């Protein structure tokens, strides 16, 4: 597809603007609006300025007339990290969905994980989010996650994102457990050079996640493309999470582990997947990468 117009980037928008640009006009109804709840007492006790929404915006909306719940993390506020109130808002929204049964929950993840300033409260919040996500899935409600923000999805939010029924990812979005700086600090620069941005994106970015089958959809960083993929995902049936499904997933991961353990870069993995010119992948569009996967 020829894209000569100016890109309408998801990556560069704030959480509020991401919601506004994807949902039907004037359909968004925010829950716990700014000013209707206190700001984080944990941050205040550390002399850090809080935010009116504690870095996450929740509410109800329609997307092309489909009634959905929306959760959007604001990556600019403390790296989108999950604190006590931030987590409580997400959990509340997830559990409410089980009662009200929207068509889906659309989750714009943009987070480095737990907000360490809030220590245990943040860790508990993450585990509550995971538990709530599984309950929502069990109730047959799809969770459509979009990873395309500045912080990607790391730490506890990396795990949580993987509990979604459907993940839509841009190349710019990143998905992993430990962040690049964390790996470098613990294991040394020989293990992982966090300053090598090309390496970081090759290993954690959307293209490699898509090629390895960890996410369902790769898309350009474009609001229209992302909206279309959300609408497409709304039509899909929700896979039942039972023992055989989980065993199948586990077998797939074990196979990848056995095959590629010890590889230092996605380039060598792409090579062993028999992809021609793995070096060129970083320069390809989402469409071209999808074509490679389909063969």
């Amino acid at each position, binding site marked *: 597809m020829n894209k000569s117009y100016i890109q309408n980037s998801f990556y560069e928008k*704030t959480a*509020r*603007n991401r919601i*506004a*640009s994807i949902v039907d006009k004037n359909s968004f109804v925010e829950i716990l*609006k*700014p*000013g209707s709840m206190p*700001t984080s007492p944990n941050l*205040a006790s550390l*002399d*850090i*300025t*809080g*935010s*009116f929404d504690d*870095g996450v915006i929740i509410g109800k909306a329609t997307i092309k007339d489909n009634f959905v719940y929306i959760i959007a993390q*604001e990556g*600019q*506020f403390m790296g989108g990290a999950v604190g006590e109130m931030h987590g409580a808002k997400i959990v509340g929204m997830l559990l409410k969905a089980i009662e009200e049964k929207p068509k889906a929950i659309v989750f714009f993840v943009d987070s480095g994980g737990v907000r360490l300033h809030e220590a245990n409260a943040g860790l508990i919040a993450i585990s509550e989010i995971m538990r709530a996500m599984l309950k929502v899935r069990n109730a047959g409600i799809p969770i459509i996650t979009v990873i395309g923000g500045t912080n990607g999805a790391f730490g506890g939010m990396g795990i949580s994102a993987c509990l979604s029924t459907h993940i839509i990812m841009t190349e710019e979005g990143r998905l992993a457990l430990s962040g690049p700086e964390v790996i470098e600090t613990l294991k040394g620069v020989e293990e992982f050079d966090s300053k090598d941005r090309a390496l970081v994106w090759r290993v954690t970015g959307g293209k490699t996640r898509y090629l390895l089958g960890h996410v369902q959809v790769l898309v350009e960083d474009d609001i229209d493309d992302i909206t279309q993929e959300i609408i497409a995902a709304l039509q899909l049936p929700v896979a039942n999470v039972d023992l055989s499904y989980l065993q199948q997933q586990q077998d797939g991961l074990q196979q990848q582990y056995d095959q590629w353990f010890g590889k230092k870069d996605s380039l060598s993995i792409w090579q062993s997947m028999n992809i021609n010119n793995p070096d060129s992948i970083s320069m390809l569009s989402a469409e071209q990468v999808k074509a490679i996967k389909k063969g």
Partner: protein
Amino acid sequence: MNILNFKFTSQPVDVTMKEVICGVVGSGNLEILVSSITDNEHSEFIINTSVTGFDHIWEAVIQEFVNRYAVGGLQFEINDMGATPAVVSLRLSQAINILEGEAHE
């Protein structure tokens, strides 16, 4: 945390919508929540900032803003993370633009 309170005399604002959120609490940035108060002869400012020692700069920037716009009857609550005076001024103007329905997105 440094909490600053200012109250300025101002002409009454002439818009109906009086609830606006603008900006993000990010490094060098701030968010503003505009709401209405009953006293429409004055505007109130509540500023939460982790930076200390710049109270007179805040006052000067807000005085300049109040001189430019009729904002009586409005309250501006600000969460600041080290925004420079220019950014503060810009965000305040932006909040007024959104109130007047001129700028969305």
